[in-house]
């Protein structure tokens, strides 16, 4: 890799964010993570831990699942730190792995065990590692500049990723890490490494599959002519392989069943795919239309590859979040991008804070059992699982006489999407400005 490029920005650096304060705040951010890790988690944390434990016990490293990279990353950490759990069999063993998704009662059994805090802490170590690697990659991407501190501080303290990685407790930080590493590799002109990272992100989380075609369009655009055709073919082959694995055109094991004895299915059969085609305005399918625009621009534009890749990755996820249904922790996938753009423009801060607030209100308003409630604090006390959620309280407090719940939810959703779209515009403006600088 070549040396990190310097960045041209319209962003100023607050004198308050000195190197000393930056170091202190980074330490504080890590402390916040360490404090949260043992006490929160969604039921899916147990489901995932069961699978990791099963693979660990069975000595399986590749399975025909769409999240192999995530599984391997977690498995690596479990092999190192799993020994610190005195009775993992009691916590994680499950008789019927075809139905490994945990039931709430099974989760309560799990969290009622004295070692539940320890187990949750260990389960989340890979998420912490991926989170910190992403932070490092953002800092490198921004040339370790003073402006990079702003970006990194927002990354470390934004409530969306803290919720997703440590309170909801899902593995979202792993695909995000690979996504960020692919951007860093592209910036350092390591296109094959970037392809590998995109491939790993696709095989970490189903919906990252949309980065695959964008990457291919970027590689075969006029922006990538600096690379030899052999490099472009090789990079494309890597990503095509990852895509083929993701949609089960290629089997890693050659079996029609996964290790749990379940029929292998393509991610196209994943329930959430339907949502991508359910947002319709008139006769237009909004996500496919917006995504096609992203693909066309990625393929056609002559702008520098690094800048274009950053914006097109961001827009791919922005389209997904604007025009499909998703749960609260998914939003963590796209927090990288506003953080990076914050280093370029000061005026990204208010839209980013607005996004965080609207994300919070929107998810409070639509929450269901266990997704955005005190239910997630069941490891601390199971009593919290029985507390009413926000929509229940909204009705109990009689607020429906002012605005019915459905309208309130729609208003919240609209505010959230408006924040996303405004961020998108800000990113575009920044992109245009930087494109001008580059030319």
């Amino acid at each position, binding site marked *: 890799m070549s040396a990190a490029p310097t960045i041209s920005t319209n962003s100023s650096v607050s*004198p308050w964010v*000195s*190197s*000393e304060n930056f*170091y*202190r705040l980074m*330490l*504080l951010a*890590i*402390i916040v993570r*360490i*404090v949260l890790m*043992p*006490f929160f988690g969604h039921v899916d944390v147990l489901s995932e831990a069961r699978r990791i434990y099963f693979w660990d016990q069975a000595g399986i490293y590749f399975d025909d699942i769409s999240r192999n990279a995530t599984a391997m990353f977690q498995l690596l950490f479990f092999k190192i730190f799993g020994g610190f759990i005195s009775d993992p069999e*009691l916590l994680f063993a499950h008789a019927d792995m075809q139905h490994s998704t945990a039931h709430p*009662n099974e989760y*309560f*059994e799990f969290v*009622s*065990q*004295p*070692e*539940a*805090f*320890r187990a949750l*802490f260990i389960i989340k170590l890979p998420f912490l590692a991926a989170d910190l690697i992403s932070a490092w990659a953002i800092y490198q991407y921004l040339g370790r500049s003073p402006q990079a501190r702003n970006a990194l501080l927002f990354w470390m303290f934004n409530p969306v990723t803290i919720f997703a990685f440590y309170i909801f407790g899902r593995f979202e930080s792993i695909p995000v890490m690979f996504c960020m590493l692919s951007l860093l590799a592209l910036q350092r002109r390591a296109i094959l490494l970037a392809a590998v990272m995109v491939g790993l992100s696709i095989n970490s989380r189903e919906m990252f599959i949309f980065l695959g075609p964008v990457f291919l369009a970027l590689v075969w655009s006029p922006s990538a002519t600096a690379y030899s055709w052999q490099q472009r073919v090789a990079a494309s082959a890597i990503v095509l392989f990852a895509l083929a694995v993701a949609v089960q055109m290629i089997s890693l094991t050659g079996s029609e069943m996964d290790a749990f004895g379940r029929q292998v299915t393509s991610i196209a059969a994943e329930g959430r795919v339907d949502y991508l085609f359910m947002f319709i305005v008139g006769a237009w399918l909004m996500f496919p239309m917006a995504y096609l625009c992203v693909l066309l621009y990625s393929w056609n534009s002559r702008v520098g590859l690094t800048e274009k890749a950053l914006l097109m990755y961001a827009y791919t996820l922005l389209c997904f979040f604007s025009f499909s249904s998703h749960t609260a922790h998914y939003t963590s996938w796209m927090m990288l991008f506003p953080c990076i753009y914050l280093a370029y423009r000061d005026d990204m801060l208010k839209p980013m804070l607005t996004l965080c607030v609207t994300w919070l209100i929107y998810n409070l308003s639509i929450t269901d059992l266990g997704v955005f409630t005190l239910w997630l*604090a069941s490891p*601390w*006390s*199971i*009593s*919290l*699982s*029985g*507390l*009413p959620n926000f929509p*229940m*309280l909204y*009705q*109990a*407090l009689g607020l429906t006489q002012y605005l019915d719940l459905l309208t309130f939810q729609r208003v919240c959703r609209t505010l959230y999407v408006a924040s996303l779209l405004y961020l998108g515009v800000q990113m575009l403006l920044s992109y245009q400005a930087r494109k001008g600088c580059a030319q």
Partner: protein
Amino acid sequence: MSITLRSLALLCLLYAVCPAHALTSVSADGEPLLRNLERDKDGFLANVGSDGYLVLTELNKSRDQACGLLLDLEFKAPMARPGIFDIFWRSAGQGFSESRKAFVIINQTLSTERTRFFIPLCKLYQFSGNLNRPSEQGNLDALRIDFPGNKDVAIKFHAIELLDGSAMLQRLETMPVDERLLEPYERVSAGAFTSLDVAVPKLYFAFKEGLHRLTLDRIFLVVWLLIILLLFGLLLRSFRRPANR
């Protein structure tokens, strides 16, 4: 019905650190009805096919008379994992429903020998918010105890007793060492939770429960605190270094 001083006193006692013991008790009348349960020759009840449960019917006890539940249980074989027991209650003319339901967890380590478990039912009536509705103030007509789902357990009920309020107060003051308080977890109604009388004790209890649970795995607690202290040490140390901007 608003919260009475008596019920508040009971709640306060529940959340206090209570030593000691003693009380009188009110026994449930008659034999419980069994559903999907089979009794073996030694008197142990086990699930048959689906999840089994037993129902104590025609209790006709006021809420004060049915303030606590004492279960004297013996497991035929220790459970491999914790067991979750659902508890439903109802007044005459009502059915069993999710709004009048709680669950308790019996840890596998407590299933190794015959144990007397004590469940404070008053707390359930209070936090579910049903006492605020006149329809829910009627006498307790029936109580249902569900066996843990999908578990191969056989349990002998040596005794099932309902405890009245004064008996429960005495017991909470002098809890016998051979008895275990089983914390019931119930769904709190949104209406009840908007009252500080319910929200504050509920949140306070949850806070205390977590602190207590932290002490159950002391090795982890020490390591976890050491990591945090180390990071705080680095943080404090940074303030002692000369500024370098």
